[in-house]
């Protein structure tokens, strides 16, 4: 049942991706409602999957990486639906839903691994949830950054095409970028702190400089500088957009580190 629902979710998100992409490339507004409807139904199925896992007995077991990815995808769609509800920016779906699909596909493809830090269940829960929420913030910032760069390019080159008319105003995207980092950064900070505490309890040391931890700290430092730059010397607009795209690469590398560690390659 849960597995079937997971497949339904994946299929719905995939169809919604196609629908959103063709919405962005065609002048007609008709597809926006179809795409949103598909996403919303998919989201409901997804919520059921996650809810079932939560309640399914082993709620005491810490979340596996695929489960964390599934949660990540769920949050991405939640953010999309909230922003959509408040600002009606349909084109956002064309960027966010594909990301949710990718992370769900990975969640399905990666083998379920037993977490290495077995004994400290509570803090591990916090660590995974908070880190993933931080990653969601940076992902939304990345999407806003990419959209910003596209719109900036279209305006500069005076290409008033369909995408131009559908993308929102530059300052909205810059604001979305800033808000996402402002929310994502403290969450990642807490995620790293709880991760370090878990490591201390399990292994006796806060930091062991494996790829996951190294990249997590690099990511943290990077966004710290980005945030500081924005608030003090005006790293906003185009520069902020570029920086968040680079920052997202750090996030991805951190997650790759998690996978490698899970497989015991580098532990």
């Amino acid at each position, binding site marked *: 049942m849960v597995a079937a629902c997971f497949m339904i979710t994946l299929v719905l998100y995939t169809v919604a991706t196609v629908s959103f992409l063709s919405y962005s490339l065609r002048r007609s507004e008709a597809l926006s409602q179809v795409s949103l409807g598909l996403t919303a139904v998919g989201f409901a199925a997804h919520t059921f999957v996650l809810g079932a896992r939560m309640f399914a007995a082993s709620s005491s077991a810490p979340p596996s990486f695929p489960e964390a990815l599934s949660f990540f995808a769920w949050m991405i769609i939640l953010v999309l639906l909230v922003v959509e509800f408040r600002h009606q920016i349909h084109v956002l779906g064309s960027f966010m839903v594909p990301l949710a699909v990718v992370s769900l596909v990975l969640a399905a493809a990666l083998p379920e691994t037993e977490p290495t830090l077995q004994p400290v269940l509570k803090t591990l829960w916090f660590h995974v949830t908070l880190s993933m929420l931080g990653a969601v913030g940076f992902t939304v910032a990345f999407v806003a950054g990419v959209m910003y760069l596209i719109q900036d390019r279209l305006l*500069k080159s005076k290409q008033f095409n369909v995408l131009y008319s559908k993308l929102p*105003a530059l*300052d909205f995207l810059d604001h979305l970028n800033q808000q996402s980092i402002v929310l994502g950064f403290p969450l990642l900070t807490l995620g790293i702190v709880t991760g370090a505490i878990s490591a201390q309890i399990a292994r006796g040391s806060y930091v062991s400089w494996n790829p996951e931890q190294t990249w997590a700290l690099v990511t943290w430092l990077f966004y710290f500088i980005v945030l500081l730059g924005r608030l003090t010397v005006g790293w906003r607009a185009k520069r902020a957009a570029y920086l968040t795209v680079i920052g997202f690469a750090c996030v991805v590398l951190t997650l790759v580190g998690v996978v490698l560690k899970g497989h015991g390659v580098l532990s």
Partner: protein
Amino acid sequence: MHLIVVGLSHKTAPVEIRERLAVPESRLGEALTRLCSYPGVKEGVLLSTCNRVEVYSVVDDIEAGYGRIQEFLADAHLSLSSEQLTPHLYWHTGDRAIGHLFRVAASLDSMIIGESQILGQLKGAFEVALAHKTTGVIMNKVVKKAISVAKRVRTETKISEMAVSVSYAAVELAKKIFSNLHEKTVLLVGAGEMAKLAARHLIAHGVGHVRITTRTPQHAVELAAKFGGTAVPFDQFKDDMASADIVLVSTGAAHYLVGAEDVHRAVRERMNRPMFLIDISVPRNIDPAVRHVDNAFLFDIDDLKHRVEQNRAERVQEAEKAEKMVLEEVTTMLDWMKSLEVTPTIVALRTHVDDLKRAEVNKVLARLPHLSSQDRELVEGLASSIVNKLIHRTMVTLKTEVNSSSGPAFVEAARRFFALDQQPAPTQSIKTCTEPPRYQAKGSAESGVEDADPETSTHKQAR
């Protein structure tokens, strides 16, 4: 009663003719009163804009009415003879007149399709006519309907969404850079007509602060007062640029007033907040190298024109949808006008009361089976006589008021008092508009006669 429109527009007359015929707003009332003083002219609305002068009127007789209105138009302008005027005039009656008014209101007949001014102008013309009591039941209904059709077209199609004037294109672009114009500041450098128009559009869309600089300080102060902004000394405006989100340049200078370095500095001072620069001067006043400055978006007059061209093409597509809506609305309007005709109303009233009478008489007679045939006739006679007396005044009034200006009002009243529209009205062959109305400049007598044909005219049967 016939609805007729006589006029000329940018499609049929050059500006030299239009400007001589245009009636200034201050003299509209007087002109309307004069129009309605012509015999046979019952109602009138005069629409006078820079692109069209049209008289919408309700007249007793189409041909006589056309003559009168033509006379009225020529009379107002002694410099223009009837012979000079006639070749430029077009005229429509009945469904085509309604269709024409709807298309005009919906801005389908405008020089720039989908522009929004015409609706305001029509409302203005209608208000003047109302104030001078030159409208009656028909004009009131038709013009109000035209306004609602225009609104429908605007909400259900994208015809007015896209900017089709250079000054408005600036607003559209501004909205792609700033999601909310309320907190934004626009700096006007120089004040050409187009720049002022663009500034007005920006203010109408919420721009909060206006700063103005011109070479003549006095001029800037005057303009600042007009726009509710502040004047900036011309030699200081470059230092002031950082405070402006939108910079609108249009001076007569023959060289670049704003260089890439100036913009670069301003953007830096703004902590990289985007800046929107519009250069509508020819020769250009902003160095094109500004394009390469990050977070500064420069558009010159050609960029804006290019945007306008694209939008125009899209509007034409939307106009096709709008035309279909107009046709639908004309049909509903015709149904209403049909109901205003006197003869069918009298017939309907007669049938209505006869039906009532028969039903009541039958009911009573069924209860009194013992009556002799003589008594039965008596009862029937009684009923007939009461019914006839009751409707007598209404019938007489309808017949005598047929040709008066308040005729349609009486018809409407009678139909409502007796609830005549709740039953199928007597059928009549009315030719409805099944194809897009054709508009041609009418000078020839033949085309006039063609329009006066009872088949196409809506109200012939009423008389």
